[in-house]
């Protein structure tokens, strides 16, 4: 069986769904950040696969460049996110998002 674009897209779709489900259901703030990373990397797999298979026998580099930018953005997002999680922990000694609910309505 030859591995073609469908396989990559299915893998990417599954990863994205896992990430989205985790981000919406996890209680731990760090876990949610990790699930967001999974979603971003699912997009990376899809964009590189598209880039590779879009035109027969040639490689369109746009997708690869896109993936590199996404990796950088993901790193920056993790840095800011973890900084905020640390401040949160100093304030409340918990990173459970279910307990972070002082504002409602």
């Amino acid at each position, binding site marked *: 069986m030859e591995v073609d674009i469908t396989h990559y*897209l299915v893998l990417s779709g599954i990863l994205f769904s896992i990430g989205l489900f985790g981000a919406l259901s996890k209680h731990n703030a760090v876990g949610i950040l990790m699930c967001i990373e999974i979603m971003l990397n699912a997009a990376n797999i899809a964009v590189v696969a598209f880039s590779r298979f879009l035109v027969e026998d040639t490689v369109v580099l746009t997708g690869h460049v896109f993936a590199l930018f996404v990796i950088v953005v993901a790193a920056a997002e993790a840095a800011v996110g973890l900084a905020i999680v640390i401040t949160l922990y100093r*304030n409340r000694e918990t990173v459970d998002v279910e307990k*972070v609910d002082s504002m409602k309505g």
Partner: protein
Amino acid sequence: MEWHLISPELTMAVLALVVILLDLVVEKKHYLPIVSAVGLIVPLVLAIDLWNEGGLAMNDMLAVDKFAIFFKVLILGITAMVIMSSWRYVNDKFEHLRGEFYALILLSALGLMLMAAAREMITIYVSLELSSMSLYALTAFLKDRKSTESGLKYILLGGIASAILLYGMVLVFGFTGTTHLDGIGAALADGGAREPGLLLGVVLIASGFAFKIGAVPFHMWMPDVYEGAPTPVTAYLSVASKAAGFAVILRIFFEAFGEPGWLYDDWSVLWGVLAVVTMSIGNLLAIQQSNIKRLLAYSGVAQVGYILVGLAAANAAGQSGIMFYLAVYSLANLGAFIAVIAISNKIGSDEISDYSGMFKRAPVLALVLGVCLISLTGIPPTAGFMGKLVVFKAAMDEGMLWLVVFGVVNSVIAAFYYFKVMKVMFIGEAKSLVGIPSDSGIRAALVISIFGVLLLGIYPYALTKWADIAAVLLP
């Protein structure tokens, strides 16, 4: 490479770096807001100077057209007003982080300016993240319980939204083979089939940006973030990031998804339905708020609903209507928030009940807040009325009567909670008679916003003519 085409963005980046460097070496930090506010004149002048020129910069990734320049000027003006009016608040609340505060505001403004100009998806994504990342940090800047909580909610929900947006962009790239908006438009116009994957991509992109502008059902972050964030950041967030969000939505949906006809019809109805849901839910939730910042947050959700009416109209009148409405909304909302900053500097509370009898304590501030709320309601002779008029008229041109009916009914509902605040301020018993001090920056910003709101209410042509010229996006 024509460097002068991106000179506003370059000078903006340099200004942010200068502020960081000055913060390191200068002892007298009270110069920082002056440097930041005065320094904004340079990119502003350079941007206006490009008005008649136009062109494409950075390998066609940035458009320097009148549309982008209109939004750049709007964003720079908003940034200047926020910096002017916030120096006392910043001195009181985070004295040791002043340099970082101004640098982050400037960097996020840079991201928003790039968003307004970007015509390529990688650029759009990176500039969106530049502005969001700065805003996440600014939201959590107070480092107290509420501010950290709002920062956490903002970054988690914002991260999910940007991942969804990214996946949409990837799908659209996969089905069209390019990330340039005009290339996508050309690929779709020329035999674009109704692929489910492509439609999914369009919907995911729409959801990602709906989060940025705070449209229902992606509005849940707004009240919490607005309440917890430092008030100047809330003021900035409520107008600047919405303006840039609409700029990029307009550009993507007109330039990339303007053709073929079925796609155009699909997204017009999509935004129309979102407009109705957004204004209705925003207004209904605003009625029950007791905190002025939360009230303004939900009122902002409702205002996004009215602006989306112009997007659903999807014509040139809608484009220029959105631009006019955004400018008018920015003036009124900033005026309201700056009055809230001045009042909370003194009384240290954002509860509406604490605004009781504010007219007796600070007649000018109460009057300004009142006029801004009247403009947000949309009652003549304020600019808010004219804004609603142009946007609703654009929808009428397309025969979308149902949208206009919802818009008008919702404006009447909205009057209830705006007037409730005014009733408390003007008729309520004053808890004390100590005056509310304000400083020159706050006064200047309030004069600008009040002057703008009244001028554009009486003589809207002063701005609509520029908005009409700047509405240049074509499918």
